[in-house]
Every structure is written in structure tokens, then in C-alpha cells.
């Protein structure tokens, strides 16, 4: 993807849409395109949170290993979704494994650089925090709905 196309992609992406063009330009410069094959791990439980990711193509499973039950899938994430909201907090570690389930292309954004820029430019930092808050809210809502066990037997 050319630089111009990447900027256009970010400007149109729901997570970044509405950011100032200079911030889009900066983020496009920061973005590292990565590709993974089925079975690869994007990261493992306990790894430092070094990046956040925008999935362009593929499917990633968030898993946790449970003795006696093997790997349990917490959630799957697909094209367009943002992974790694914890990067806005320094020195956090990954709480799940992220395993590639379908050949995946994604953009990685360096967490230290994002936090540093956010400290220097609070407007951008606030905008990113709002966007990550929306991601966290959506994940929390989805988790709550699943806790309701809506499809289970009525009691």
C-alpha cells in the first residue's frame, strides 16, 4: 500500500476517522504493515504491550490456556477491528494469547511513540483515548451480553 493509500485508508477507518490530517499523516508514517500465517502468534500472554494493531485482513483469536481444558477462545477479531487498547497505559502486559486463525495482514503502531506523541499533544492523546474508550466499551458490552447467556435454557 502506497503512503497516499495508507493515509486514505486511515482517514476512512472508523477508528481514526475525524483525526486531524497531520495526525493521520503521522500515524501513516508510524504504521508497520505486517503479515502472519495461520498458527503464528501475534503475541503471547505475558508479553509487553508494545503495539496496537488494526486488522486489515484475516482472523485472530484471543485465547487463554486452561489446564485440563486446553485453549479457550475468548473472542475472535476480524478485518477493520482494533486490537491492543492497553497500549495507552504504560508498562502493561498482554493478558491473552493472540493466535492467527486465518492468514492476516495488519498495521502495527508503536505504543511508546503513540504515548510520547499523546503526552506532547494532548488533543491527539484525548482523541485517541476517546477512540480506545469506545473499543473498550464495545468489548465490555459484548462481554456482558455473553455473560447473560441469552441463548441458554430459560429458567
Amino acid at each position, binding site marked *: 500500500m502506497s503512503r497516499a493509500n495508507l493515509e486514505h485508508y486511515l482517514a476512512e477507518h472508523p477508528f481514526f476517522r475525524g483525526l486531524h490530517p497531520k495526525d493521520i499523516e503521522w500515524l501513516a508514517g508510524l504504521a508497520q504493515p505486517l503479515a502472519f500465517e495461520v498458527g503464528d502468534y501475534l503475541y503471547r500472554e505475558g508479553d509487553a504491550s508494545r503495539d496496537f494493531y488494526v486488522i486489515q485482513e484475516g482472523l485472530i483469536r484471543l485465547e487463554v490456556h486452561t489446564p485440563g481444558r486446553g485453549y*479457550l*477462545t475468548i473472542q*475472535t477479531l476480524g*478485518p*477493520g477491528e482494533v486490537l491492543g487498547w492497553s497500549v495507552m497505559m504504560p508498562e502493561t502486559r498482554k493478558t491473552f494469547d493472540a493466535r492467527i486463525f486465518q492468514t492476516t495482514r495488519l498495521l502495527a503502531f508503536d505504543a511508546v511513540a503513540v504515548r510520547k506523541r499523546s503526552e506532547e499533544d494532548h488533543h491527539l492523546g484525548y482523541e485517541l483515548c476517546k477512540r480506545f474508550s469506545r473499543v473498550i466499551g464495545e468489548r465490555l458490552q*459484548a462481554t456482558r*451480553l*455473553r455473560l447473560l447467556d*441469552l*441463548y441458554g435454557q430459560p429458567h
Partner: protein
Amino acid sequence: MVNLISHTPRPDPMLPRPFRVARAIRETADVVTLELEAQAGQPLHFMPGQFTMLYVFGVGEVPISISGDASKPERLVHTIRSVGLATEALCKLRKGDVVGVRGPFGSCWPMEQAKGSDVVVVAGGIGLPPLRPVIYHILHHRKDYGRVYLLYGARTPSDLLFGEELKRWQHTLSHAPGASPVLVTVDRAEGSWDGAVGMVTSLIPHLRLDPAHTTAMMVGPEVMMRFTIAELRKQGIPEANLYLSMERNMKCAVGLCGHCQLGPQFVCKDGPVFAFTQIRDWMTQKEV
């Protein structure tokens, strides 16, 4: 306002007709599909979305959506989950057993109004059977519709219904080579499950639709449908194009007893399929 009420002539609505079980299919641990044949008289013609009252003699009568193909009325198909006395008895029926059938009752899915538009079908849990006639109808008239998506959420992989048909529909519903019109997700997965894990609403942002010209039809727990509607609205699908099937305590099925009243509507007679705009203000009323 779209008219969803069927004009199919029907016999005495209070008189059960005897139907014999031609085939009983165990779908999951607690779900069975019954294929019924009329013991005498005409087959029961119906429209996608309608339901019948199934009477297990000596046990009770329950409303069950028709899950079969409306173009093949000689086999009346219902998919039933065992949740109470009558449904448990229905799930235990075997080939040759006889049940009473009243109906068909209620409104139908807006298949005519949806012609020419993209269609999103959203099913949660046991909500897939009432939507299966929609899929059959679309398959019989595939050129009348644009892109079609079936989004299906279940509790676990072992709770998924119609597994073989889901695989077939992935190809037969497709609007273009490589398209994936059937998207399935489960709440919890272990072992060999190779699909998505998460709420059915999480599938909606991945769809490629023409929102202004998309019709959505959904069945599932009301909470699921409320969140589905919110997500579909977020994608730009107009409120007027959203349809859902409601479940209430239906007893008489003809709007006499009032058990299924939802505000000014009777779910048995005016529903179970409603335009969202018909019942929007009543869905969040806790007292009804």
C-alpha cells in the same frame, strides 16, 4: 406502513387438525425438527414467518414457528426446543405419532417489499428456524434480491442448527465468487471450533451492504435484537427497513385471549413479525 398480514385462507382457527409425524430429526441435545403430514385434507399452506399451534394430546398446546419451505407445504416442518412440558413432549415424538395442528397464524416476513434490496438475516439461538423459510424463499427467487447475508449466533458449536444447510448456503446464497454470505459465531468455544467467537452483533460491521437499500430480518432473544437493531442503525440501515419476530405468551393465536398483548398489538394476530417502527416504543416498556 407495510402490510405483513397474510391473506392465505385458513380453516376454523380453533379446530386442531390431526397431522402425523413423517420424520423426527434430532438437531442438537435439546432441539428436534418434526416433519408433519396432514392425515386428511389439504396440506397447510403458509407464508415465511407464520406459526402454528401444535397440540400434544393430553399434555398441552404451544405456538411454534414453521421452519420449512413454503413452496413444499405437503411437509409441515417445525423445529422445537425442549423448554417445557409440551415442547418436551413434542421433542419425544416419533414417526407415526399424531399431533393436533391449528393455523397457520400471524404475519409474515416482508419478502415482497425486500425485492431488489440487499437482505440481512440475523438469527440468535433457536431464532434460526423461523428464518429458514426466508432463506428458502430467497434461494427460490435468488435474482429478486441483492446481496444476502445470514448472521447466526449460538451458545456453543454443539448448539448450532442445520449445520449441513449452513455449509450449502455459503455457496448457494452467494452473490459473487468468494463472498461469504453465512457468518456464524458462538458465545463459547473449545476444541475444534474453527469459526468466530463473540456476539452476533460483532459480525455486522464486516458486511458490505448498500445500507439505504437493505432490509434486515431478525429473530432471537429480545435483548439480542435490541443490540442488533442498534448496530444495524449504526451502519445506516433505515429504521423502516428493520423487521423482527416477537415471542410472547401466545395461547389462542387469534387475538381473543389477550395473553400476548404488546401495547396495542396482539403478537399472535398482528405479529409475530413486526416492522420495528410498529413496536419500537413498546420494546423497552418493562410493564408489557
